[in-house]
C-alpha cells in the first residue's frame, strides 16, 4: 500500500431542478423576498464600451424550448479585464443570471461587449461571454462560450475555437450579429449540438 493522499473529493453535482428560480431568482418564481436580487445587472451603470443585447433560446434534443433553464454569464469588461483580476468600472460585476420567458422560452439580456482576454501561452482570446447552464434534467451545469459574429478575424485566431476538431461545429459558439443585438441559440442535443466544455 502506498501512502494515502490527503485530498478531499469535490461534492457531486445534482440537478438544479425545475424550481431553481426560488433560490437564485425568486422574482421569477413569483415572489418578492430579498431587498436585492443578485445577477440582475451584469455591467452596471458605469461600464465603458458598446452596450449590447443578447437574445436566444435553449432547445432540447426534440427541438422543444427549455423554458426552465437558468443561465449564468461571466465576462470581462470592454478592456478585457475580469473583476478581481484588475481594475474595472465601479459597479461592473461581470456576472449575471438570465431566465427565459416561461411561455416562449426566449431569453434576453443586456450587457456591454467584452474586450479580448489574454489566454494561455500569451495567445489572445476573441471577445466572448462565458455561460453556465443549469436546469431540470441537467445533472451537472454545462459550460460553454458565446463569441461574436462580427469578430471574424479574432474568432479565426481564437485558441479555444481552434480546438474544436470538427470545424463546422465552431459556428455553434458564434452569435449572429444584428446591429448591437446578438442572437445566440443553444442546442443541448441533436443537429448542431452546441459545443460544451469540460473546464
Amino acid at each position, binding site marked *: 500500500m502506498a501512502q494515502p493522499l*490527503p*485530498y*478531499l*473529493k*469535490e*461534492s*457531486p*453535482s*445534482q*440537478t438544479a431542478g*425545475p*424550481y*431553481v*428560480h*426560488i*433560490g*437564485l431568482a425568486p422574482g421569477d*418564481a*413569483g*415572489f418578492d*423576498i*430579498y*431587498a*436585492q436580487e*443578485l445577477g440582475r445587472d451584469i455591467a452596471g451603470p458605469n461600464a465603458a464600451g458598446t452596450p449590447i443585447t443578447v437574445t436566444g433560446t435553449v432547445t*432540447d*434534443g*426534440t427541438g*422543444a424550448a427549455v423554458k*426552465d433553464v437558468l443561465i449564468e454569464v*461571466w465576462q*470581462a469588461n470592454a478592456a478585457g479585464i*475580469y*473583476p*478581481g*483580476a484588475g481594475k474595472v468600472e465601479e459597479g461592473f460585476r461581470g456576472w449575471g443570471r438570465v431566465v427565459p420567458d416561461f411561455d416562449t422560452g426566449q431569453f434576453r439580456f443586456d450587457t456591454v461587449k467584452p474586450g479580448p*482576454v*489574454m*489566454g494561455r*501561452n500569451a495567445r489572445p*482570446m476573441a471577445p466572448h461571454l*462565458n455561460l453556465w447552464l443549469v436546469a*431540470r*434534467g*441537467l*445533472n*451537472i*451545469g*454545462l*459550460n460553454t462560450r458565446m463569441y461574436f459574429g462580427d469578430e471574424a478575424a479574432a474568432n479565426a485566431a481564437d485558441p*479555444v475555437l481552434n*480546438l474544436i476538431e470538427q470545424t463546422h461545429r465552431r459556428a455553434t459558439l458564434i452569435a449572429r450579429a444584428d446591429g448591437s443585438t446578438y442572437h445566440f441559440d443553444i442546442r*443541448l*442535443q*441533436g443537429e448542431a*449540438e452546441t459545443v*460544451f*466544455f*469540460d*473546464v
Partner: protein
Amino acid sequence: MTATDLYQRDRTRHPPALAPDYKTSVARSPRLPLLSLQTSASELTGPTFGHNDIAALDNDLIRNYAHGGTPIGERIIVHGRVLDENARPVPHTLVEIWQANAGGRYRHKKDSYLAPIDPNFGGCGRTLTDENGYYVFRTIKPGAYPWRNWVNNWRPAHIHVSVFGTAFAQRLITQMYFEGDPLIAKCPIVQTIPDPRAIDQLVAALDMNASVPLDAIAYKFDIVLRGTRSTYFENRPEGN
C-alpha cells in the same frame, strides 16, 4: 495565469449527463463529448460578493418570509464549511439554498402539488461563509414530495445548494439530503450519481452537539469545491 490552476474535475464522481432513469435527462443531455479546455483567465476568475449584497436575515428561513407568524414544521439548523479539495476553507463565498416547505410544496408558480403553501415560508436563503469557510442557516425541514418520472416517485427531503468558490469553473449546484432517509436509496435523481461514496457526501449528518435544546435540531453539511493547483514547474514548449 501561471501561479494557479484547478484540479481536473473528477467526472466519475458526478452524475453523467445521460441518466435514463431520470427521464428528463434523456432529451436534455449532450450526446457529443465535452471539449476539454485547459483553464484560462475566463475560468479561473469568478464573481465575488460582499455583505452589501445580502441582508442579515437572509440566512434565517424561519424569519425571512414570516408574514405575522412562524412557518409550520420541524425547526432545523444546517451548518458546515465550504472547503476545497486541499481541505482548505473557502472564505467569503456565497452560499444560496432553496427548498420545499414542511408539506413538500415549493413557493413557485409552476408547482401545483396538493400540499398547501405556507404563508410564512418563502423557501430560500443565502449567506457568505466566514473567514474559516463556515456557514449556517436556520430553516424548516422540507417534506418529501411526489414527482412525475415513474408513476410513483418521491423525492427524499432535500435542500438545494448553490456555491461559487473563487473561480467560475468551481461553480457547483447540488442537493443536501438528511441522514437516515429511506427515500434516498429509491430516488432516480440521487441515483444518477454512480459512486455510492459520492452519494454519502451529500447526506448531512444529524449533529446533536450543534442543536439548540428545546428549539432546533442541527444537521452538518460540508461542501467541497474543486481544488487549486500550485504550479512549481512550468511547461516548456521546447521540451526543456
